[in-house]
Structure formats: structure tokens, C-alpha cells
């Protein structure tokens, strides 16, 4: 999981010591997350949990926070997304990478929100969280790459305050699988999700991708998402859903039939 992390700043603090210090804290925060969650590091909490040498109770408190997110995501995705994997021999292991990336970047970005009169866009491996506070600065312009045409962007998404995440397999090989089948989904090229937090944009992009041909209909059921699904045949499906309105949610009970 190598990935470049890029920070763009505009406004009051861009090149001064305050900006430099903010960058250092962002990097420290990401490194700390890596030390705890990386499945590539033998000494990470996750690796130790998988070896059975560390209990969940003794692990860093953020491990439980991430596991709670993973459980929520597993329910929301109907099981297509899960941080717990069961291999062919029936051994259960923890791989929270699908939750950690967005969560870690959201967490690192909290330091950037403390910069006065400064806009930021923090990107990690093509997923980003953006904020705009400078009057008249306009939203950040996020280009969406077209997985089928090397010279084109699919479009431009203006993001004032929010997050964008894209899931696909071409860049990193077939590493995404439907947790229900253990196999990579078919028919789908990429999913981009825009919502308020990168934690959920990332989870939903991954979960939708895992749904394969069902990605669009699954996204329709998610609250406050704007999404673009690019299919293997080059067609696209755009999805925009309203914020969750608890008052408008249909009642859980079944109305009695009229007599």
C-alpha cells in the first residue's frame, strides 16, 4: 500500500512556518495510523492481533474505533464489505485497510482545520478531503480520471467542503473482492463517491465497487451521496441521494390494511 500524499493550501497559511508545522502534524498522524494498522508491518497492532499476540482489549483504542466503523460498513453493504476475512482454511483475519485509509486522512485533516483563513485539499492516493473558508476562493476543482481514456478526465467536481474517493482495480491490480464471494466483481471499472467525510466516501466507493453490477442501486440507498459509476463497457451511472431525513424515513412497522 504505497501511496503519495499531497497537500494543497491557499489563503493565509501556505508557505509560512505555521503551514510547515501543520504538514508535519499531518504526516505524523498518518505515520501513527500506519504503525497501528498496516498489514505490511509485523509490529503493527493489526499484525499482532492476527498472530494472536495482542488482544483487542490491549490494542490501541483507535483499533476499536476502526473496527466499529468496519462493522457499520459491513451491515450497510449487506456484507459485500468486511474488515474480517475468512481464508480457504477457515482462519479469520483482520484487514481494516478499506476503512483505515479514509479514516486516517480525515483524522490527519483535523489539524488542517485549525489553520485560520486557510483552505486545504489533502489527497492520499487519489482520495481527498477538502475545505474552503477563504471568502470568494471558490471550491476546489477535483478532476475525475476516465478509466477508459488515458487522455481525458471524466469530469470536474467542485468541492467546497467534503471528500472524494475513487475505487477501481486497474492501478493496483485486482485487490478488491466481494467479501460475500471472495471474488473480484465484474462489469465495473470504477466508482467515485462524494460525501461529507472521507471515511464514508472511501468505504462507500469500495463497498459499491464490490457490488459490481449492483453498485448503482446500492448507492441509491445511501444518504447524502453523489456518485459516479463507470462500467466496464464505458457507460456511466450518476447517483445523487438526499441527506438522511429521519422525520421523512418510512415507519418500520407495517400499516394495517384498510378494512
Amino acid at each position, binding site marked *: *500500500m*504505497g*501511496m*503519495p*500524499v*499531497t*497537500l*494543497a*493550501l*491557499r*489563503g493565509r497559511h*501556505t*508557505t509560512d512556518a505555521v*503551514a*510547515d508545522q501543520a*504538514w508535519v502534524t499531518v*504526516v505524523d498522524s*498518518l*505515520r501513527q495510523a*500506519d504503525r497501528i494498522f*498496516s498489514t*505490511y*508491518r509485523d509490529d503493527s497492532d493489526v499484525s499482532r492481533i492476527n498472530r494472536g499476540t495482542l488482544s483487542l482489549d490491549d490494542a490501541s483504542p483507535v483499533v476499536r474505533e476502526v473496527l466499529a466503523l468496519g462493522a457499520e460498513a459491513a451491515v450497510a453493504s449487506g456484507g459485500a464489505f468486511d474488515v474480517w476475512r475468512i481464508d480457504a482454511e477457515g482462519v479469520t483475519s483482520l484487514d481494516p485497510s478499506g476503512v483505515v485509509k479514509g479514516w486516517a486522512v480525515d483524522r490527519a485533516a483535523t489539524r488542517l482545520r485549525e489553520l485560520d483563513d486557510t483552505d486545504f*485539499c489533502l*489527497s*492520499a*492516493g*487519489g*482520495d*481527498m478531503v477538502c475545505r474552503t473558508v*477563504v*471568502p*470568494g*476562493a*471558490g471550491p*476546489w*476543482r*477535483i*478532476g*475525475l*480520471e*476516465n*478509466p477508459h*481514456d*488515458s*487522455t481525458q*478526465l471524466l469530469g*470536474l*467536481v467542485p468541492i467546497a467542503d467534503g471528500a*472524494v*474517493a*475513487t475505487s*477501481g482495480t*486497474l*492501478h*493496483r491490480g485486482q485487490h478488491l473482492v466481494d467479501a460475500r464471494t471472495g471474488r473480484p466483481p465484474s462489469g465495473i471499472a*470504477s466508482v*467515485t463517491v462524494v460525501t461529507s467525510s472521507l471515511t464514508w466516501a472511501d468505504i462507500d466507493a469500495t463497498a459499491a465497487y464490490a457490488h459490481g453490477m449492483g453498485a448503482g442501486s446500492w448507492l441509491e440507498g445511501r444518504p447524502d451521496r453523489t456518485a459516479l459509476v463507470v462500467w466496464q463497457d464505458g457507460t456511466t451511472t450518476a447517483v445523487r441521494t438526499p441527506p438522511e431525513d429521519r422525520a421523512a424515513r418510512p415507519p418500520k412497522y407495517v400499516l394495517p390494511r384498510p378494512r
Partner: protein
Amino acid sequence: MKRIVLWLLSTVTTVVLLFGYHTSTAGPAATSVLAPPVAGSSSSSSTSSDTGSTTSGTTYTGPSTDTQWGPVQVAITVTNGKITDVTVPVYPNGNGRDAEINAYALPILTKATLESQDGTVDMISGATVTSQGYATSLQGALDKAGL
């Protein structure tokens, strides 16, 4: 009228900082690189682009950087303190899969570098693999250019 003012304000100094984040092959050796402003004094005119091939810029070549797919090297051409061209002289093309990956990762990354200083596109959502090597080599080229 209002839109123009907003657009001008949106092009004030942008600083881009790059961070190489290795976990799989490099173990704990994560590196961080601070870059000076890339888009410092971008022109307020979006129509008079000076990316033409006739301008006499200076070319700076970044280090060849290994990725899991092979080496990547980035060269930038700087004219009057502004990046006017980005090329990728070295990239992995050893097999069909690499070619497939690079065929669309590199042109988009190149586009991103040029467009970000115009203020047209701030970031690209999507690319991940070769962009690691691209970012490292681009950083080297930027350092050489003193940008």
C-alpha cells in the same frame, strides 16, 4: 464580473507538498519531502497559455524512481519560473499489464501537473500505483529547478 473576481482570488498562491508513503517494500523508511510553492505567481489570464513548444525553457530531470511496476522518471521544463512541460522519459512497459496501467496513469498525471498551476484542476481522484514513483521523481525535478 463577480465570477472573474472570484476566479482571480482562487488563483492565489498554492503550495503543493509531497509525501512518499512506503509500507509494502520499504518497511519503516517513510520519507517526507517539503516542496516550495509550485503555482506561486500563476497568471490571471487563462487564455494566454505559454505551454507552446517554441518557448526556450530549461529542462530538469528528476531521479529515476523504482515502483512495483518498474522505474519512473519525470522531466519538467521551466520557463520564467513556471512549469511549461512535463514529460515522462522512463516508465514501466515490460508487459501488457504495465502498459495498460501506464497508458492511462501517466498522461493524466502529466495533465494534473500542468493544469494545477493554471488552477484548472486542483487534484485528480483515482490514480495510485505509478503515481508514487511519479511524485518522487517530480519532486526531484522541482528541487533541481528551484521551484
